[in-house]
């Protein structure tokens, strides 16, 4: 199970276990093109990449908890270590979240690629590139279509907030924040019970 959470490519047998269906069904879906994947070169073995599997499961209403352990992945991006520590503490103790952190926009990109977070808490002012640039890049990639973004900032210029929401942020939270309402906004966005 632990493997499943980090595995990037699955066999039809693994997919059958994750989806709790027969391997034959998986093969049929693969061959019909409902489940996208590839065959191993030089053989007929079918392989399914992680994002295709996730997309298939979402399309067919199959719960993702076998694949994702039930915990929601959160990436916190902020150059202030104290803020990061606080979120790590807060979300770690909550129990419903798996947390990764980044302190620059560049690092945020790398971690996003590897960790594929469900939600990003993104500070606006970063040392290298601004949060809105990070936000725009994520939204330009259809793979991260379902990823939620909460922008955080101490700057409260209404024009800027409007601009952030324009480039694809789902929510704007002003620093300092009421922790409860932040968690509430996160669970609402992730539809976590």
């Amino acid at each position, binding site marked *: 199970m632990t493997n499943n959470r980090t595995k990037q490519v699955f066999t039809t047998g693994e997919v059958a276990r994750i989806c709790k269906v027969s391997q034959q069904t998986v093969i049929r879906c693969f061959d019909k093109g409902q489940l996208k994947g590839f065959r191993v070169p030089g053989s007929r073995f079918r392989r399914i990449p992680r994002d295709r599997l996730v997309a298939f499961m979402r399309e067919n209403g199959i719960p993702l908890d076998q694949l994702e352990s039930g915990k929601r992945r959160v990436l916190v991006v902020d150059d202030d270590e*104290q*803020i990061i520590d606080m979120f790590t503490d807060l979300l770690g103790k909550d129990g419903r979240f798996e947390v990764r952190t980044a302190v620059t926009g560049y690092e945020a990109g790398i971690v996003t690629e590897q960790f594929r977070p469900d939600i990003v808490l993104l500070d606006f002012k970063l040392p290298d590139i601004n949060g809105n640039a990070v936000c725009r890049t994520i939204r330009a990639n259809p793979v991260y279509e379902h990823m939620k973004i909460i922008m955080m900032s*101490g700057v409260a210029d209404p024009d800027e907030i409007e601009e952030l929401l324009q480039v694809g942020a789902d929510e704007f939270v002003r620093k300092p924040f009421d*922790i409860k309402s932040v968690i509430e906004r996160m669970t609402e966005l992730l539809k976590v019970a």
Partner: protein
Amino acid sequence: MTTVVDSQPVHQGRSRERVELILSQLDRLPTLPVVAARLLSVTTSDETSVRDAVEIIESDASLTAGILRLVRRADLGVRSRGITVSRAVALLGFNAVRNAVLSVQLYEVFSRPCEDARTTAAREGLWRHGIGVACTAEMIGESLGGPGLGSEAFVCGLLHDIGKIALDACLPKSFTRVVEDVERRHVCVCDAEREIFGLDHTVAGRHLAARWRLPQAVVECAWLHHQSAGALPSSVVHGRLVAIVHLADDLVRAAGVGFSGYGHVGDAEEAAKALGVDPDNLTTLLERLPERMESFQELIGLGGDGNRREYTTSLAAANRQLGRINAKLSAENRRLEVRSACFGALEQFSERLSDQDRIGDVCVAAADALHGMLDAHRTVAFFADGGSRCVYAGVSAADDEDGTVLVVDQSESHGATVRDWLSLVPDVPRLVSAPPDSEHFWQQCTGVCADEPLWMLPVIGLNGAAGGVLVCASEQAVFRFQATPAECEALARAIGFAWVSARAHLDADRTNEELLDLNRRLGAAQKELVRTRSISMIAKMAAGAAHELNNPLAVISGRAQLELGKCSDPDSARTLQLIIDQTQRATQIVTDLMNFAKPEPPKPALVPIADLLESLCQHWRATSSLGEERLSLTVADHDVSVYADPAQLREVLGAVVTNALEATEPETVRLHINSPSRASDETIRIVVEDNGTGMTPSVLEHALDPFFSSRPAGRGRGLGLSRAYRLVEINGGRLSLTSTPAVGTTVTIELPAGAPTS
């Protein structure tokens, strides 16, 4: 008594001082009678000089008489009738006349009476000695170079001992001692003089001759006549004359003619040889001397007994001359009287002026000056500036009132303006008849008709402007002055200068005032600029601070919230909640500051201001439980609207009224809305008055600064009024504060009146 030679080094310092003293006293000596001095300076080279000489002699009545007598005595074969000085000069020759004049006048100097008989005798002896030397020198000169040289030698001889006169005049008592000393001890007179005065008569003579501006030859003879020809300095110009006088002096002293004190008598034969005179002739020369001296003295009426009849005749002739001179003088006197009146007026005018005078003041001063000078009934001085149609006028002072200043505006005048009739007046500074059209202006200024003819003195040189002085005076009064154009011109020009200077002063004044106003406006603009710049500084700082502060605030607040979630102890929970609340407050301060520096752009709309204020007042009364007597509203016109952002307007009014209610514990707060007078005023004024304790000027100055509060520190953030100011400003209006301690504060909000085109 020490000898001269011994005493010199010992008393050198003292004697030098004494010499200085004597020389300085020489300056105070009565001059050689002017006539003689001038006569000596005139040469005989041409006709003009002879005429000059005649005039010089004629200017002195007694001298004229003397000369005329001289002609008669000379028995030149003419009758006394018709003799004039110029004829006498022609008959006798210039030099003879000059010598005679000089001798007569010098004698007057020599023969001052003295109580001491010995001194008087000595003076007479000196005089005889002088005449003797003069005659001898003349004879030597004639024998060497003819009558010309003889005449020159005569003058030099006559004046060679003037140094003695000088010493006698400066220090008569000491001079008496010299005379005594010379007689008792038989010392050389020069030595005695040096011993007693510190200098001898040759040095004194040189200075006196120079001071009297006598010819160079005379100066040199007076100085060097004791020197033998061989010992003369090379700088001497008239060495020959000096040698002649030296020889004559020796001869006369050897012959014992007159008195000149004792002294070494040089070798006359040697001196004669050096000069080129045959020594054998010297004896004949000396034989002729008494006769020559006698005839000369008789000639000038000093020696012999005067003929009474001749004396009377000459006196009569002199009197006639005097009569002529008198007639000339009285004519001159009349002319001078007019001049003096003119200059009196000029003086009076200048005395009245100061550098602060305005054009009107100068006009009155000019009018008064001519009023007095012409004995006029009334005078009006006026000045028409080049640019404007205004005429400045000054009316002379009447019996018991001061002069008046008028500014006559001719822009709407009917008939001829001042400039029109001024163009008819000739452009010369003379008293002329005033043009007929000036009568109207005269009446405008004085209020009465002219009861005598009107005259005018045009003032010229006004550099584009024009002006003059109108005079109402009799013909006789003006007539005298028409003959003296130069003096009137001086007066007219002086008035002109004063006018031009007063106008320049006026211009400078105006420029100054404009400059002052400009400075004031510049100062205000600068203040505003500083304020704007400080606000933009605050904006930048606030943006930076917001970011820097909000992260730590978020951490503090977030941690406190985390702790609060786990906390079961009520005390700790309260503390944590306090931390959370205060963090929130700190965040709000930063936000307010940012909003102040960079407020949201207004979204203006038509706001019916009366309705808005009425609903706001009700709201304030309800929330602060105030009666209408404490918070009153007066509306002049219910229909007016302002064009502003409604939300921001509410905030502004709220801030101002809250400030009025809270700041100074007032009894009442009154609001007025002044409706604009639509024609000219595009703004509506909302006035909020309280009768609280008011503000001192120093508090008032900072009342609009962000975070300024006169309340105790820690109460309120003090952004209310400054934010209100800012919001009114971005809505195109103005907020101003006036306050008087113990009376109250008034806030005036000016806002653009409702949409102009709706």
